[in-house]
């Protein structure tokens, strides 16, 4: 009996990500959810700009490449064009969603667009070589903050889930991590719920996945996951930030 194999919604090609990059795990979780919900034929993904810019090569579903940060806007159009027959998700990094795409993110959330957003937060700009991102931690050393992020000069990191949870619009916001097996399983449940919300017509669901970037953090993959545990998760606490259906049920 096969206990674990590559999901069918994930193409059988080698990904371009660096060794130990957790993008691969998150891709797989999304693909597993697409398989389990049986929505492969009608799912459309929107790829961002960033390390996951070539996500369209890895998912066996229709994919659209959006301009930098504009994935939620593109997804809005796709979903509104044929709301009954399409499941639309975006897959975005922190430089895409929390920086240049902040307006699109906030506005699609406040409109409660019926889309699913997978937000990968690794606290750095990966593709461009490790510059400081809006989500870089205070004191974090990056290419553009060689003495550590100075909050007096650069401001504080943006906590996307906390910020969006203040809006009345969004249906479901959860922050998960992929630093160990337990958290990976929890992350999958969150992603599945985000897709189910869309199928049930509930509205905007965002799952923030706290991820690692071994190359640009300058660590081994193992050390990077440890750094997630010790530094990222205390600053970005995991959990459900908004779940309107559960709130109503209470």
């Amino acid at each position, binding site marked *: 009996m096969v*206990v674990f194999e590559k*999901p069918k919604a994930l193409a059988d090609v080698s990904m371009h990500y660096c060794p130990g990059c957790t993008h*691969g795990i998150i891709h797989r979780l999304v693909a597993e959810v697409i398989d389990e919900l049986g929505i492969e034929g009608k799912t459309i993904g929107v790829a961002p700009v960033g390390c996951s810019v070539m996500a369209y090569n890895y998912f066996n579903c229709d994919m659209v490449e959006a301009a930098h940060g504009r994935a939620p806007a593109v997804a809005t159009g796709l979903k509104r064009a044929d709301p009954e027959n399409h499941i639309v998700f975006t897959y975005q990094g922190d430089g895409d969603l929390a920086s240049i795409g902040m307006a699109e993110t906030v506005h699609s959330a406040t409109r409660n667009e019926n889309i699913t957003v997978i937000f990968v937060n690794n606290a750095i700009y990966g593709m461009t070589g490790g510059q400081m991102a809006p989500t870089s931690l205070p004191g974090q050393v990056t290419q553009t903050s060689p003495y550590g992020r100075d909050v007096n000069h650069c401001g504080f990191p943006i906590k996307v889930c906390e910020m969006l949870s203040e809006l009345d619009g969004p249906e479901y916001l959860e922050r998960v991590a992929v630093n160990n097996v337990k958290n990976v399983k929890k992350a999958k449940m969150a992603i599945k719920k985000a897709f189910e919300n869309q199928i049930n017509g509930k509205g905007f669901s965002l799952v923030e996945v706290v991820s690692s970037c071994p190359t640009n953090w300058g660590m081994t*993959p193992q050390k990077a996951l440890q750094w997630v545990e010790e530094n990222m998760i205390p600053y970005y606490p995991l959990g459900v930030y908004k779940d309107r259906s559960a709130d109503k049920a209470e």
Partner: protein
Amino acid sequence: MAKLTFKTDMCKGCGLCVDACPKKLLIIAKDKINQKGHSPAEITDESQCIGCAFCATMCPDCIITVER
């Protein structure tokens, strides 16, 4: 007994599976080299494997198939 199959040529040798294995059965085979130029992961003693699939859960490149 569980059976692990590795797509060795797609392995990037990151070692996340090695850390995830509760029985500490996986290693990065330093004496080998794959098509990509990495030393791939492999299992030392398959008879000890319990088929928990923790290695496959943590593998970013999805190269491990677990059968039980």
